[in-house]
């Protein structure tokens, strides 16, 4: 076997110190010599590393990083080097399944699609298309999202479409919209190569985007290394490299950010002329943060005052700054409000729109950005504003339909609300694609109960059997990455093409072909009676998407399949003005906030109340960025006598999501086969727990049992990774979302996975008592289910 490095043992590989110019290092892993290579990019995180797929006899035999690619300069991380083996996993779904007499049985594509179409038509006739909902993914391709967006909005006309991106990056989008008027990342990955300081907030980059972290590590070892400020309650691998590490109590990002902003404003380290020319609402911010003195912040967050000062010194004086945020911000209390403070930091210091000054409001998933761009998450395609009728009319013209067919009469329904409508019975058909809500949603017992409801017709489109396909009425087997062609866009706006390398197994089909088939069978037509969806291939769809993106921030009009296949990925906007893509946006300090261009008229960051169009127009920021000031609100659930500890959740380096792919790679699975609960030595001592002991963790919503891992975490806090469910191991309750809250950020509607109050105790998972307890749990669930059914029949 040919492997250039052992990425399991040494995650980030050998250092290639850099400044301004990141050297190439090609990482490769082959199991056999390929007979040809196919251009692609990795889909196992949002970094979007360019890679080639090695193919032999219609099988993938390995991958190598693309040296020419601007994102990774040839490097790949452990997930990228190993994850592809899942394509050839023997348990791939290969035939459609239909539930008959309570059991999933093999069926033909005709039977399965006819059933879906027949059910759709019945429901529309009886209840309107408001009875149909879609829950999609952050892992489809651009062409698939756009097709789905068009069939949902212009074909069916349902407002109920969202992605699991709601769980991972809705806050990134909400924060960008709130500050800059539309979604779209201001940063470029090349900012890392020259910046003087990096701020990472709730973002364990070392574990999440390993290749991006290599880029940072190489700066740290090169000349003029940047200073690193890390805000994270855990001493993660990222935090270990920090110049200053602030470890705030869970849910106190706002006090810490406000405290930093206050110190910088007090020290006069702000760019007054930038603030005056390019922002609105600075005075409000100044007033709001004034009370967040280092001492007050310490009181709220446990961050020592002198450490806060040390961090503010760096952030206030650095001539260039790169900031990133992820789940530690997005899945926490006051998520959007906190993420926006990072944007504020760059705005008040005038550090935006140029080399070395970037913001990455990170995405977790590889194609989350496309979901948002193409309108598969409820927003309108091309970052259009659903509350702006002119934008709705533009789409009407583009699709040649009556604009009033497009749902714009109420805000798009977000994921948690879609599940609530299913629970109440007003959504009667839920179509799920490439995602596993039976493990990834909060409050799992409730989600399982909803998916199992008799009056909910559940269609699940996936490549693997999952906890969710188990609950489906129809299962459609899909082709995945490597088995179909399409494009996707990473966090720094780089668009990659991924070509089809091999045929999909059995009868499985691409999500793209499934959506086209559905549209054809549903006979969706435009105003002139022509088929609504005119494209037949991904490339034709890409051309249609280009027209939809024209003139919008995410302008793809200068790209083509041919151009994307030439070498490196290309950044949007790519158009006549920027034929090779634009490295930075907002270079002139003009933001996308003008009333006729913006994607949203804004929301109250505490409640999520929408600002009406006329109010926004009356104070049109006309291109100036909007500064939002927010006070701290304490979390709704705090530890008490019964549940004395904080729980937080997160990821481990070797896995992605619910391990649907990574759990099928032997190497990745062996590196991290099992969940765990991490706790401090102090708490371990207090509860008499030693390394490896089984620990029962209980919240108000459920219980799990995990082996203990001790150290590198603040006392009072416990951590459980979110990857582990039941498809490969079902001996005990272990999915952390058994414990989490059904509660969300009022603006982004992203759930608060990052905190819950819990209690812990040492236990033996296989003792009689546990068996009794878990049966009791199930019994309670069954009884609750019966009560629900009886209630709904009354």
């Amino acid at each position, binding site marked *: 076997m040919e492997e250039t490095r052992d990425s399991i043992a040494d995650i980030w590989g050998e250092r290639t110190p850099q400044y301004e110019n990141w050297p190439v290092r090609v990482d490769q892993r082959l199991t056999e010599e390929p007979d040809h290579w196919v251009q692609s990019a990795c889909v196992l995180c949002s970094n979007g590393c360019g890679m080639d797929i090695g193919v032999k006899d219609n099988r993938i035999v390995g991958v190598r990083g693309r040296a020419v690619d601007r994102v990774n300069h040839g490097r790949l991380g452990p997930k990228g080097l190993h994850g592809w083996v899942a394509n050839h996993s023997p348990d791939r779904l290969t035939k459609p399944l239909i539930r008959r007499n309570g059991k999933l049985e093999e069926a033909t594509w005709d039977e399965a699609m006819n059933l879906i179409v027949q059910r759709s038509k019945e429901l529309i006739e009886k*209840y*309107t298309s*408001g*009875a149909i909902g879609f829950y999609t993914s952050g892992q489809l391709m651009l062409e698939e999202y756009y097709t789905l967006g068009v069939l949902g909005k212009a074909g069916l006309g349902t*407002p109920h479409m969202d992605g699991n991106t709601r769980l991972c990056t809705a806050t990134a989008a909400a924060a960008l919209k709130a500050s800059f008027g539309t979604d779209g990342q201001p940063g470029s990955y090349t900012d890392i190569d020259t910046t003087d300081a990096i701020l990472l907030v709730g973002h364990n980059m070392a574990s999440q985007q390993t290749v991006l972290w290599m880029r940072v590590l190489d700066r740290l070892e090169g000349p003029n290394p940047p200073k690193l400020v890390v805000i994270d309650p855990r001493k993660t691998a990222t935090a270990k490299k920090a110049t200053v590490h602030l470890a705030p109590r869970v849910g106190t990002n706002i006090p810490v950010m406000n405290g930093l902003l206050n110190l910088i404003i007090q020290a006069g380290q702000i760019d007054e002329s930038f603030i005056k020319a390019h922002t609105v609402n600075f005075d409000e911010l100044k007033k709001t943060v004034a009370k967040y003195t280092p001492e007050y912040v310490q009181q709220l967050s446990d961050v020592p005052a002198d450490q806060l000062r040390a961090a503010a010194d760096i952030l206030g004086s650095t001539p260039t700054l790169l900031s990133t945020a992820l789940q530690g911000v997005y899945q926490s209390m006051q998520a959007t409000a906190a993420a926006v403070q990072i944007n504020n930091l760059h705005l008040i210091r005038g550090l935006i729109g140029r080399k070395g000054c970037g913001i990455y409001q990170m995405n977790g998933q590889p194609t989350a950005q496309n979901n948002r761009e193409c309108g598969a998450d409820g927003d309108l395609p091309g970052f259009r504003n659903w509350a702006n009728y002119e934008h709705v009319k533009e789409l009407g013209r583009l699709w040649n339909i009556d604009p009033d067919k497009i749902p714009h*009469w*109420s*805000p798009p*329904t977000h994921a*948690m*609300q879609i599940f*609530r*409508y299913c*629970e*109440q*019975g*007003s*959504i009667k058909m839920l179509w799920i694609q490439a995602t596993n809500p039976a493990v990834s949603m909060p409050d799992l017992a409730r989600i399982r109960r909803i998916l199992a409801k008799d009056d909910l017709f559940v269609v699940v489109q996936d490549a693997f059997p999952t906890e969710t396909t188990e609950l489906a009425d129809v299962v459609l087997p899909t082709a995945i990455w490597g088995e179909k062609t399409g494009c996707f866009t990473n966090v720094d706006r780089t668009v990659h093409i991924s070509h089809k390398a091999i045929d999909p197994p059995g009868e499985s089909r691409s999500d793209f072909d499934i959506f086209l088939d559905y549209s054809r069978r549903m006979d969706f037509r435009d105003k002139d009676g022509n088929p609504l969806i005119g494209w037949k291939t991904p490339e034709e769809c890409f051309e249609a998407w280009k027209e939809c993106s024209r003139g919008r921030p995410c302008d793809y009009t200068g790209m083509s399949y041919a151009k994307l296949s030439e070498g490196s990925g290309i950044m949007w906007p790519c158009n006549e003005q920027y034929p090779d893509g634009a490295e930075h946006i907002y270079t002139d300090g003009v933001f996308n906030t003008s009333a006729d261009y913006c994607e949203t008229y804004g929301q*109250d960051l*505490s*409640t*999520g*109340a*929408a*600002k009406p169009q006329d109010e926004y127009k009356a104070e049109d920021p006309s291109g100036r960025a909007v500064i939002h000031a927010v006070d701290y*609100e304490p979390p*709704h659930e705090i530890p008490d006598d019964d549940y004395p500890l904080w729980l937080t959740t997160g990821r481990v380096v070797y896995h992605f999501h619910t391990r649907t792919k990574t759990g099928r790679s032997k190497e990745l699975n062996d590196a991290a086969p099992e969940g765990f609960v991490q706790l401090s030595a102090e708490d371990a001592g207090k509860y008499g727990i030693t390394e490896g002991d089984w620990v029962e963790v209980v919240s108000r919503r459920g219980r799990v049992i995990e082996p203990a891992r001790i150290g590198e975490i603040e006392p009072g806090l416990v951590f459980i990774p979110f990857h582990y469910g039941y498809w490969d191991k079902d001996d005990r309750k272990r999915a952390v979302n058994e414990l989490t809250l*059904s*509660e*969300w950020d*009022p603006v982004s*509607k992203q759930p608060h996975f990052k905190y819950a109050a819990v209690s812990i105790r040492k236990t033996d998972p296989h003792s009689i008592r546990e068996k009794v307890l878990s049966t009791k749990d199930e019994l309670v669930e069954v009884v609750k289910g019966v009560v629900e059914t009886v209630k709904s029949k009354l």
Partner: protein
Amino acid sequence: MHLGNYLGLVHESEQELAEALRKVGAHHADEPDIFQICQLLASWSDQHVQQLKPFIKKYSEDRSSEPDKLSRTLFDEPRKGSLALMRDLHDLWLLSNEVELCWIVIYQAAMALHDKELEATCNELSGQTKRQTAWLLTRIKQSAPQSLIVAA
């Protein structure tokens, strides 16, 4: 002077609004956002009552003895069925508008009295009441199509 009459009215209305928000929040706790936001908005009204106290001391208040017809009949019995949430939000919206109007009336009086402190308080609190109303309206708009058209 009838300022006391309106101070009493706004005092009562804020208390009613807080109570009604908590009731509705509890009735619809299965809606993941309703409980959480209603608690938050209720805490704002509690805070308003506190901020009102110095002015009640200064000007005294008249409190009507009859219980408010609206809130008593509307929120005591949890409503059932698919329309329930919609109707409860609708009634909360009426209550918060009542509070908003009270603040406007008192603000006018404060200007005539040259009571700068009362003016500032009215300004601040009516601003927050507007945010309560705005959330209710947003949520009502979201619920309306599904509960009126789709739900059986």
